[in-house]
């Protein structure tokens, strides 16, 4: 349970970090909080030759409230995301998701960008940023590009981030009138939940508008439940509609049998969570179905 030796880089600016990445290609790995990377290095599942520790690049540790959007720097600790007031007020699903990640000690070190860039289908934050319609800002030496969160998660531990890029920040749009939440089914014991669900939607009081549902831990990557969303859009807000949508979402999930449960059980959990997430979100604004 000790990492293999590696060459350690501790750049103080992003340009320097990008140079190191450019030079070492696939042999370099960026380390933020290290809360996912270090366990894998200790197990020697991964043994990068170069570690690029970005902790000294303080310009990557920020949350900016720009009114219509909130930008979160990659190095922002999850514990800070959890407590950031403007996020609570404007895009509450983000801090609500943050506070369900791992445990408080891990969140004190683990970073916002790391949870997303790791590409782990069991990580929670991808589902939350995805439903908010966030854009992921990736920077390389040739400049920055923005990727829709929906197009960012490619496969297990694979994202659209290139070897020579750093996930710099995440831009979260502030959409007035939207509500929703992130709910996760925690196991009674164990490192990961069984499944998680993010819902984010608008309504005119009577009907659902622009529904977005994303699922954690039930596929090779975070899953956007498009059919369930399409079904729910323009439906009247009723228990039946939500139930139907939860069943559709459950069909869209792609879980596999493992220690955490059978495929069919996980589908049931997805459906339970979707229902509960809508019920909780609607209850909070007083328009119960």
């Amino acid at each position, binding site marked *: 349970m000790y990492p293999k030796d590696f060459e350690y880089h501790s750049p103080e600016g992003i340009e320097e970090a990008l140079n190191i990445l450019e030079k070492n290609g696939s042999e370099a790995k960026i380390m933020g909080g290290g809360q996912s990377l270090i*366990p894998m290095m200790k197990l020697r599942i991964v043994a990068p030759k170069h570690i690029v520790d970005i902790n000294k690049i303080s310009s990557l540790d920020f949350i900016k409230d720009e009114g219509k959007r909130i930008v979160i720097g990659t190095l922002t600790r999850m514990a800070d995301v959890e407590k950031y007031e403007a996020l609570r007020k404007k895009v509450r699903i983000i801090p609500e998701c943050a506070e369900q990640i791992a445990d408080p000690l891990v969140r004190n070190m683990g970073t916002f960008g790391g949870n997303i860039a790791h590409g782990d289908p069991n990580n929670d934050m991808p589902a939350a940023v995805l439903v908010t319609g966030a854009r992921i800002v990736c920077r390389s030496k040739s400049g920055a590009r923005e990727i829709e969160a929906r197009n960012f998660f490619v496969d297990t531990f694979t994202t659209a981030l290139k070897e020579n890029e750093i996930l710099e920040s995440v831009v979260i749009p502030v959409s007035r009138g939207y509500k929703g939440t992130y709910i996760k089914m925690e196991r009674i014991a164990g*490192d990961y939940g069984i499944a998680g669900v993010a819902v984010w939607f608008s309504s005119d009081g009577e009907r659902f508008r622009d529904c977005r549902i994303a699922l954690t831990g039930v596929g090779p990557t975070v899953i956007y439940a498009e059919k369930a969303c399409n079904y729910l859009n323009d439906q009247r807000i009723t228990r039946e509609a939500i139930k139907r949508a939860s069943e559709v979402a459950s069909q869209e999930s792609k879980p596999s049998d493992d220690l955490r449960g059978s495929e069919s059980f996980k589908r049931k959990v997805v459906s339970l969570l979707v229902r509960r997430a809508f019920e909780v979100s609607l209850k909070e604004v007083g328009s119960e179905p």
Partner: protein
Amino acid sequence: MKVKVSMVVNGEKVERVVQPRMLLVDFIRRELRLTGTHVGCDTSSCGACAVLLNGRAVKSCTILAVQAEGKEIVTIEGLSKGGMHPIQKAFVEKQGLQCGYCTPGMIISSYQLLSSNPNPSEEEIRKALSGNLCRCTGYKTIIDSVKYASKLMRTEKRK
């Protein structure tokens, strides 16, 4: 490859030349011989290795020593510099331990909680300690200890 790393541990500046792969917990235990911080699980599940890094509780088995460069670390030994801390007293009095192995980590997590929330509810205590495992006590007496510590600390403040 070795690198120089320096940090402030329990108020004192320390400097060592170490391999960059050295975990913070090994830096604390082997280099500094502060053995109150323990290794329990290796997978950042149990929290026996918890220390304060710039005032925040973290798992030192999942941090490289080099990541703590220039930072301030407080270990369980550092909490009792001015005599036994009220949290430590409370854990003794309310039997918040049996084998003692998880105890330093539990106290570090409790410390962070009580620094920002002097009068936590039971639910808040459970959340704050959700990154620490205990195999002996069933957690009940640990929860009682934190409640009692919060009382002790509030009384102390009023004095």
